[in-house]
């Protein structure tokens, strides 16, 4: 368990999360090694199914980087993402998975440090939780 490097799928809204990741890279802030960034036009694009499929196909945790409330380019996309997340949480609870595995983080284009910090925190948290038992 010592060498366990959790795999994180990070959905990044093209309006905030993705530029923030660029900024974090530009500032040479380290990311945990095992992160896959998924660029989506808006957090509202992320279906509940994607969150669950990601866990099913081998991710240990999923992060959604969405815009702050009232700051969504498409007005309500981040709120939709939030409500889909809570639906996914309910499903996870039912099947006995830790709902901490999926989390949403609100940020803006210029929040590079916050993005890197969130990834590290998540990675540490997942190390404690252990590998995702639902992997196929």
């Amino acid at each position, binding site marked *: 368990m010592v060498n366990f490097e959790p795999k994180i799928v990070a959905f990044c809204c093209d309006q*905030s999360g993705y*530029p923030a990741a660029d900024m974090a890279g530009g*500032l040479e802030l380290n990311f945990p090694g095992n992160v896959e960034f998924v660029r989506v036009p808006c957090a509202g694009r992320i279906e509940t199914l994607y969150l669950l499929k990601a866990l099913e196909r081998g991710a240990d945790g999923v992060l959604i980087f969405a*815009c*702050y*409330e*009232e*700051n969504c380019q498409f007005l309500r996309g981040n709120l939709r993402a939030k409500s889909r997340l809570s639906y996914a949480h309910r499903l996870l609870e039912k099947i006995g998975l830790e709902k901490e595995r999926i989390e949403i983080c*609100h*940020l*803006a*284009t*210029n*929040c*590079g*440090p*916050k993005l*890197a*910090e969130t990834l590290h925190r998540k990675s540490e948290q997942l190390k404690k939780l252990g590998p995702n038992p639902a992997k196929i």
Partner: protein
Amino acid sequence: MTVAKELAQSGVSALLIERDPSLGGLAASFCCKASESCNKCFACVADKRVLEIRNGPSISILTQTELTGLKGGPGAYNVSLKNGKGRMDIDVSAIVIAAGVDPFDASLKAEYGYGRYKNVITARDLDEMLRLRGKLFCPSDGRLPKTVAFFQCVGSRDESIGNLYCSQVCCAYALRLIKAIRYQYPETKAAFLYMDIQPAGASFDQFLNSCRQDKGIRLIRSLPSKVYHSPLSDGLRVRFVDPLKGEVAEEPFDLIVLSVGLVLRKDSKSLARLFNLNFNEEGFFAPPPAQTGVFITGACSGPKDIDRSIIHAKSIACTVQQYLKGRS
């Protein structure tokens, strides 16, 4: 920047000249000031505009370039530019000046000790700290401050330094910073020392109420008179009139943030000479007569926040276009 973008969109080719190596000006150095939801600081919009402008098809950009000369008359100007060692002359039909503003030099307010005490910083310093380092700390020893005081109107509404105007942006700016800090570090308490809370806007009331309800934020209508520094404990004490007790009080703070006002950039004097511009009562550029083909926009015509600068720039873009149309 916005002017160039808008003109380009309407099919007018534009040349953008910036003295600094990168675009964006003051606004591009701001951090996001959101707490649990967006607090409408518009800093993210500025970042996006920079991207958009690099995108624009008919905009040429010259950075690190300065204007050195001007020839010709309305409608057919010839400007001389200096870029490092290189020089060039370019013919243009209209000129838009968006020279921007600088934050007030807080060391001119000697009683607050900016520049002498490490833990007295300006709101802009704090902003950069949050944007690039992503955390709040006392510059003297790097620890997290437990108490932060924000002094408003440093360099604005102040007769002693000759800036009689209100800088219009600092109240909202400081309150947003406080909100962001309180959200990130709930154990840090903030005090906001002010004259009037001036801003207005569609959701400002809501925002202000949330500040008032926050137990960790004290809004004190009183401007401090002096900051004392104790070399032994490295602590700061602030002297001000406590309006609740009605007497002079002194209180210790870990970090003091000065909400500096906006002043015209230092090099604006030479621009003014070059273009024969007048200053208005507040010391900002006064708009020159329309037929000269020289236009002023943004905060250099009077303090403006990002939102209002963009609106103003767009409206000027419209005027420029009509001016050009009228000539051709």
